[in-house]
């Protein structure tokens, strides 16, 4: 993964955020991680104060998204990202506890690139994150228009 790609992590649970970060680092990914604890702050960052998303135009981003946020549903953020002309090409990795089939399908339908369930079993969890790191290293994050 190119060095300039920033990882936007939207995760309200600090523990989860820390575990994700540690495992990404263990996978050898050293890109900048920008953490957000709620949906509102993440949306402000992604779409800017004017809400157009122009602020991130030309920036290489990757979004790690939890669906259960205290202030809004991650699905709504996913929807907005995929509908925005500046951000729609940004890869979105949904990382959540929900493994409901309907929910997974819905996220893929909305344009999520990867859907990962957080397993309680730590081996699986760490493995999933490491897989994600591997994924980061092979994907070519496009520079959004």
């Amino acid at each position, binding site marked *: 993964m190119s060095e300039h790609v920033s990882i936007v992590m939207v995760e309200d*649970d600090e523990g*989860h955020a820390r*575990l994700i970060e540690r495992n990404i680092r263990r996978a050898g990914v050293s890109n900048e991680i920008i953490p957000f604890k709620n949906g509102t702050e993440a949306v402000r960052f992604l779409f800017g104060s004017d809400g157009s998303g122009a602020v991130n135009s030309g920036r290489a981003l990757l979004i790690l998204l939890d669906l259960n946020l205290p202030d809004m549903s991650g699905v709504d953020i996913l929807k907005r990202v995929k509908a925005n002309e500046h951000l729609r090409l940004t890869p979105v990795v949904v990382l959540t*506890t929900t493994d*409901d089939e309907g929910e997974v399908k819905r996220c893929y339908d909305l344009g999520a690139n990867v859907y990962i369930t*957080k397993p*309680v*079993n730590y081996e699986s*969890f*760490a493995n999933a994150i490491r897989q994600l790191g591997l994924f980061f290293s092979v994907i070519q994050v496009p520079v959004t228009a």
Partner: protein
Amino acid sequence: MTSVETAGPIRSPGAQPILLALGFAILVAISLAAIWLVDRARDDSQTVVATFDIQNRLSLILLNLRRAESAQRGYIITGQKPYRDEYREAAANTMPAVKSAAEVIGLDPSLKDGFEKVPALVERKLAEMERVVELHDSGRPREAADLIWHGEGRAAMTDVRDAIVELYSVERKLLEARQAESAHTNTLLLLVTLLGTAAIAAIGAVSIYLVQRTSRQREQARAALLDINENLEARIEERTAELREANNEIQRFAYIVSHDLRSPLVNIMGFTAEIEAIKNDIFDQLPVAEENDTEASRKTVELSRDFDESLGFIKGSIGKMDRLINSILKLSREGQRTFKPEYVSMDQLIRSITDAVAHQAAEKEVEITVEALPPLKSDRLALEQIFSNLVDNALKYTAPGRPGHVRIRGRAEHLRVVYEVEDNGRGIAPEDHQRVFDLFRRAGEQDQKGEGIGLAHSRALVRRLGGYMTLKSELGKGSTFIVTLPRRMQEDERHAA
């Protein structure tokens, strides 16, 4: 449920026939009375006719006698022959008139006595007149006139007249009495008819009133019943909706709770693993040399073991909690699934289940016998889950030291089908018969893997399919699970969950 009490009992359905019978009886009585009275009236008029006949005949006697007398006198005065002829004719008619009157009067006891003397009196008068006429005929008019002048004839005539007038008046009195009686009879007839008519009219009125009241009550009862029915349906619908809502709420609650429980569990598990990694790092750096049986290295090994033991318990508990949460999630998802009733061949369904466990059964030396099973209309997936669970349990909880035998049989009842899964396994103690159906509860020796979900889930499914599951079991001898289901699952029941 309230009973139909608002309308009250529909009274006097028995009064109607009684009233009708009464009315009919009165009509018959009136008719009989009328017939009798009309008969009496006819008798009365006949006697009136008879009276007039008697009077007529009596008058005829007097008339002939007077005619004879008046002609006789004319003859005496004028000596002309026509008077004499007239006299002869009238005199000749008189006695037949008396005879004719006697024929009628002879039947009437009240006149008989009074009439007895009449023929003699008439004959006396006739004899007197005859003597006068004969004297005149024989050329002695002077003597004849003397005889008249003497007044014997007049006296005889008066006697006849008096006798007849008396009879006349007797007869008139009789007539009057009869007429009075007849009038009385007629009045009675009128009265009876009027009274009867009034009675029938009254009965009719009462009857109409009763009929109207009955029909009014019936109408009210019907309306009340309709009202109650509608209310009942509305209430059932309301309750069903409430129950459905409550159930949905529980499902959502279970779903959300299990999710929210999972989130911290990820952290606990994650950081426990982190601690374990850190511990390993720390202990790797400590001098652990088994050959160096120093106090320090023994302590280190002990500490490391304590660490591992504690971490092991934590991880074990987390694993268990994770399984429980997953079970709740699974149950809540199952609860939200919509059933699709279809025709299911239970023979095929059970065969596919027993085929799937054939290997396991052979390993545990359990024989499975399946009898012919009635088909039904229900949700296939739910049936598979229920019977898989029952067969699994039967294979799982065998009695040690005894070859296992599982029997599956079924029978169709009127609107239901009953399936039984019987085993000769270790059985369930009576106090645990309810417990085994509770979520996360298990009975007997805990030597088998499981979360205590299977039977709870199966029973919930059976209920949602519109049936029920019961258990017959004796500890150490075996268990029989009896599943009773509607032969045709109602479309409505699909939403009942």
